[in-house]
C-alpha cells in the first residue's frame, strides 16, 4: 500500500535522494552539487525555490521573424484576385512561388525555435518553468503540421511559459484566444452560419473535462459560443459579425454565451478539477494512461489535488506545492518508477553530467526518432507517454543518444576515435577521498540512478573495472557512464 497522505514530508526524511527525486520530477534533474544544495534547504524551501522560480526575462529569445507567414496585403490580394479572374497564370505562379519561399523560410525558423527551446531547458535557472511549459504544451497540444506558422507556435509557447505556475483558469481562458490553437482546430472557420465544432469538442474532451462528461449537443452549442473567435495575422480577433449572439444551452446553463463564458462553464464543472488533477499527477507523479487506469491509492491522491484546485480557484502554486511536499510524492512506490520522456532523458542526462555542448540539430533528430519532437506532438491529444515511449528501436536510440552526449561520438560516425572525447568525467568523483572501484561506481550510480541499479548490473560495472586493472581514468569513467546510461533502469526516474 502506498502512502497516500498529502501532509508534508518531515524535514528529517528529506535527504539527498529525496532532493534528487524532487529535482528530477519538478525539473530535469541536476548535478550532485545542485542536488546537495537543494537537500540542505529542507523540503519546504527546496520546493518553494523550484515553484517560485526567479524571473527569466533575461534569457535569450529565439531568433524569429513574426512576418514570415504574413497574410497578403490588400494590394496583393486585389492583384491575385484579378489574376484569378483573368486566368493570368503567370501572376498566380508568382504568388505561388512567394508562398513556397515563405513556407521554406518558416520551416527553417521552426527548426531553430525547437532547438532554442531544447537549449533553454538545458540551461535555464528555472527548470520548473520549462517543465510546466512542457506540461501545458502536451495538454493543449498544437503541432506545426496543423498550423504552419512558427511565430504562432512561439507565441503559444510563451503563453504557457508566462502562465506556467499561475492558474489553470488563465491558461484555459488564454487558449481560446490563442491564434495557433484557433488555426490548428479550425476555429478561424467557425462561422455563425456554419459552426465548426472542432475547438468546442476538444475544449471539453481534452482540455477541461475528459471523455464522457458532455453531450454532442453541448458540443454543438459550445461551437456556437466560439463563433467569431478568430485571428488577424498574429493576433486574436473577435469578429462580432460572425459571432452567434443567440441563447445557448451548454452543460445545463442557458444564456447568450460567448467563448470566454463557455470556458468558465467548463471550469465550473466538477469533472474539470478532477481531469486537470489527473493531468498534473500524470506529469509529476506516475505513468497512468487514463483516469480510470489509476489504482485506488492514486485515485485518492488525484481527488485531493482536485479538491485543492477547486478550493484555490485553479491557482497552481499552492496545489503544486502541496503535491511536491506530500508524503505520497516521496513514497517508494512513486520513486524511480516513471519512464523518462525523451526530453527528460536528453535534458536530464546533460544537466546531471554537465556534458559539453552538443549539436542542437542532432539532439532534435534524436528527439524525433525517440517520438517526442518538441512543438510537434503527433496530434491534439499530445504524447501518450509512459510505456509508449519505449520499444526496441527507441531503446537503442536512447542508449546511443546518451553515449553521444557523454563522448561526442555521433551514432553513425564510424571514423570517430576515443581521442576525440572532450568530456572530463573525473570532475564527478574529484571529491572522493579514497576512490576505490566501489566508491566510484556507487557515486556514479547515485548520480544517474539514485542508487537504484540492479545488483547484477552494479556487479557488471565492477567487473569491467577489474578487467581494466581497477584503473580509474577518464577513459574508464566514460565507459562506466556509457554502460550506466545503457541500463534498462536508466529509462526510469
Amino acid at each position: 500500500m502506498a502512502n497516500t497522505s498529502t501532509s508534508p514530508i518531515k524535514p528529517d526524511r528529506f535527504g539527498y535522494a529525496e532532493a534528487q527525486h524532487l529535482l528530477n520530477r519538478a525539473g530535469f534533474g541536476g548535478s550532485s552539487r545542485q542536488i546537495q544544495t537543494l537537500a540542505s534547504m529542507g523540503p519546504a524551501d527546496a520546493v518553494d525555490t523550484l515553484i517560485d522560480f526567479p524571473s527569466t526575462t533575461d534569457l535569450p529569445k529565439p531568433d524569429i521573424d513574426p512576418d514570415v507567414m504574413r497574410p497578403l496585403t490588400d494590394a496583393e490580394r486585389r492583384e491575385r484576385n484579378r489574376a484569378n479572374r483573368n486566368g493570368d497564370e503567370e501572376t498566380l505562379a508568382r504568388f505561388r512561388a512567394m508562398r513556397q519561399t515563405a513556407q521554406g523560410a518558416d520551416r527553417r525558423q521552426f527548426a531553430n525555435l525547437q532547438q532554442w527551446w531544447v537549449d533553454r531547458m538545458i540551461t535555464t535557472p528555472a527548470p520548473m518553468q520549462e517543465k510546466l511549459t512542457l506540461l501545458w504544451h502536451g495538454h493543449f497540444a498544437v503541432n506545426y503540421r496543423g498550423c504552419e506558422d512558427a511565430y504562432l507556435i512561439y507565441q503559444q509557447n510563451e503563453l504557457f511559459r508566462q502562465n506556467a505556475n499561475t492558474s489553470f483558469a488563465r491558461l484555459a481562458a488564454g487558449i481560446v484566444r490563442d491564434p495557433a490553437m484557433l488555426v490548428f482546430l479550425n476555429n478561424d472557420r467557425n462561422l455563425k452560419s456554419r459552426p465548426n465544432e472542432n475547438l468546442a469538442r476538444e475544449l471539453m474532451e481534452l482540455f477541461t473535462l475528459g471523455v464522457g462528461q458532455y453531450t454532442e449537443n453541448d458540443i454543438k452549442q459550445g461551437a456556437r459560443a466560439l463563433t467569431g473567435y478568430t485571428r488577424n495575422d498574429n493576433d486574436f480577433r473577435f469578429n462580432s459579425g460572425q459571432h452567434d449572439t443567440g441563447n445557448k444551452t451548454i452543460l445545463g446553463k442557458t444564456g447568450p454565451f460567448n467563448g470566454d463564458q463557455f470556458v468558465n462553464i467548463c471550469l465550473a464543472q466538477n469533472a474539470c478539477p478532477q481531469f486537470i488533477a489527473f493531468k498534473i499527477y500524470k506529469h509529476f507523479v506516475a505513468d497512468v494512461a487514463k483516469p480510470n487506469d489509476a489504482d485506488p491509492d492514486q485515485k485518492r491522491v488525484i481527488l485531493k489535488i482536485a479538491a485543492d484546485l477547486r478550493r484555490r480557484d485553479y491557482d497552481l502554486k499552492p496545489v503544486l506545492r502541496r503535491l511536491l511536499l506530500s508524503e505520497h510524492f516521496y513514497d517508494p512506490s512513486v520513486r524511480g518508477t516513471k519512464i523518462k520522456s525523451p526530453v527528460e532523458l536528453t535534458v536530464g542526462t546533460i544537466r546531471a553530467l554537465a556534458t559539453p555542448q552538443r549539436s542542437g540539430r542532432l539532439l532534435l533528430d534524436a528527439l524525433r526518432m525517440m517520438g517526442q519532437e518538441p512543438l510537434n506532438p503527433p496530434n491534439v491529444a499530445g504524447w501518450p507517454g509512459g510505456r509508449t515511449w519505449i520499444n526496441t528501436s527507441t531503446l537503442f536510440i536512447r542508449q546511443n543518444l546518451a553515449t553521444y552526449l557523454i563522448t561526442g561520438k555521433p551514432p553513425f560516425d564510424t571514423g570517430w576515435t576515443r581521442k576525440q572525447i572532450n568530456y572530463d568525467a573525473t570532475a564527478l568523483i574529484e571529491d572522493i577521498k579514497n576512490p576505490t572501484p566501489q566508491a566510484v561506481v556507487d557515486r556514479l550510480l547515485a548520480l544517474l540512478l539514485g542508487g537504484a541499479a540492479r545488483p547484477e548490473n552494479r556487479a557488471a560495472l565492477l567487473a569491467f573495472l577489474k578487467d581494466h586493472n581497477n584503473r580509474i581514468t577518464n577513459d574508464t569513467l566514460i565507459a562506466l557512464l556509457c554502460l550506466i546510461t545503457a541500463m534498462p533502469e536508466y529509462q526510469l526516474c
Partner: protein
Amino acid sequence: MTDNAYTRRVFLQRSLAMISATGTLPLFLQRSAFAIDNPLDAPLTSSRPGVPDDRILVVVQLGGGNDGLNTVVPYADSAYHNARPYIGIKENQVIKLDTHGKTDGFGLHPSLGPLKDLYDEGLVSILQGVGYPNPNRSHFKSMDIWHTASPETGGQGNGWIGRYFDNTCAGEPEANACIAIGDKAPLATYGEKISPIAFDDANLFRWVGSELHPDLAKSYDQINRAGQDATADPDSPAAFLTRTALDAQVSSEKIRSAMAKPAEQSYPNSRLARSLKMISAMIRAELGTRVYYASMSGFDTHAGQLGNHNRLMRDFAGAVTAFYKDLKKQGNASRVCILTFSEFGRRVKQNASGGTDHGTAAPMFMIGDMVNPGLLGRQPSLTQLDSNGDLKYNVDFRQAYAAVIDRWMGADSKAVLGRSFKHVPIFNPKKLA
C-alpha cells in the same frame, strides 16, 4: 475502459504463468512457447476464424500529392487533353490498360511499365476516384486525415493502424508488431497499445557504444540480456524495460543479420526501393510484424512536372515490382498485401509553371496475389468539377481501409473506423481462402 482493464489482467496472469517457466526468454519467444499451451485460451491477436495470423500489410505512402490523372491516364477523354495541353500524356505514350480485350480508355504513365507486368499477371487492383468528403488541400491536414481515417475531425485522433492494433491485441502486443521505415513513426501507426518502431538504418538498430572500447560489449550484454528478474512484478515498469531490452537485443540481431543477407532479387536505386528491400528482408526473417510502412516523397509537382513525375513513377514502379518479385522468390508473396496512397491528387487543369496544384481524388493501388485485378471504382468526371476545379471523389478511402481490415487483417473495421463502410471489392474471395 473495461476492455483495457480486462486485457491488463489477462496480461498479468499470463505473465505470471510464463515467468515461472521461462524467466529469461524474450517476450516474443515466451509468446510462441505460450501459444502452444495457452491455458487462458485467449487469442494473441484476435482474428476472425479462418483468417491466418501470418498475413502482412505493407503501406506505401506517396507524399506530396501524387498526380492521379497522370498516373492512371484517362487518355480517351478530350477534357483531359484540353485541361493539360502541355503536361498531358498523349494516347500514343500511355501504357494502355486493355483488360479482357476491351479498351476502357485508361492507361498507365509511360514509366509504370514494370507495374503493368504485374497488372497483366492479375496482381494489381486500381481503385479510381478515391477521396473523402470536404477535401482539405493542405498537405499536412490531408495526410493526417488519411492517417487517422477521420475526415470529420480534420485528421485528429490516433492512426487507423494504431487503432487496428488497439482493437485486436490482447495484452502487450508483439515487440515488432508494426515497423515503419523512416526517422519517425507515422501518425497512422499511433495507437494506445503499440509503440510503433521506426528506423531508417539497421546499422543504428544496436548500441554503438561498443565501438568505444572493444570489451564494452561484454558488459553491455550482461546488462541488457539479463531478462526479467524472476522475482520482479512482471507488470512493473522495471520488468517491462528489462523485457524490452532483451527483445531489442534479439530483434537487433535478427534484423541486422536479415539485412546482411543478400536479397533474392535486385532492386533499383531509390529511397522507396531501399525501404522495401529492408522490409522484404524482415519478412523473410519472420519478425512477427503484421504491418510495415514505407514512404517516398517529392510528389508536390507544382512546376516542371513532366521530368519530375517521370522519375517518381519510374522509382515507384521499379521499387514495388522488385519487392513483389522478391517476395515471390521467398515464397511469401501470398502473405503480403501492398496498399499505396497519396494525401490527394492534383488539379485537373495544368498551371502556368508546367505543373499542377493541390487537388482531390486520385487512384490507389492494391497489389498482391489476393486482389481482384483490374480497374475498380469509377473515374470522376473531368468536366463536372467542384468549385475549385477539382475532381469529385467516388470512393471514400475508408471503404478501402475497411476491406483491408475486415478481409485481409481479419479484424473488425467498424471498431477500428468508428462506423461501417461498404467494402470496395479489392479482394478475390477465392484467392483469400
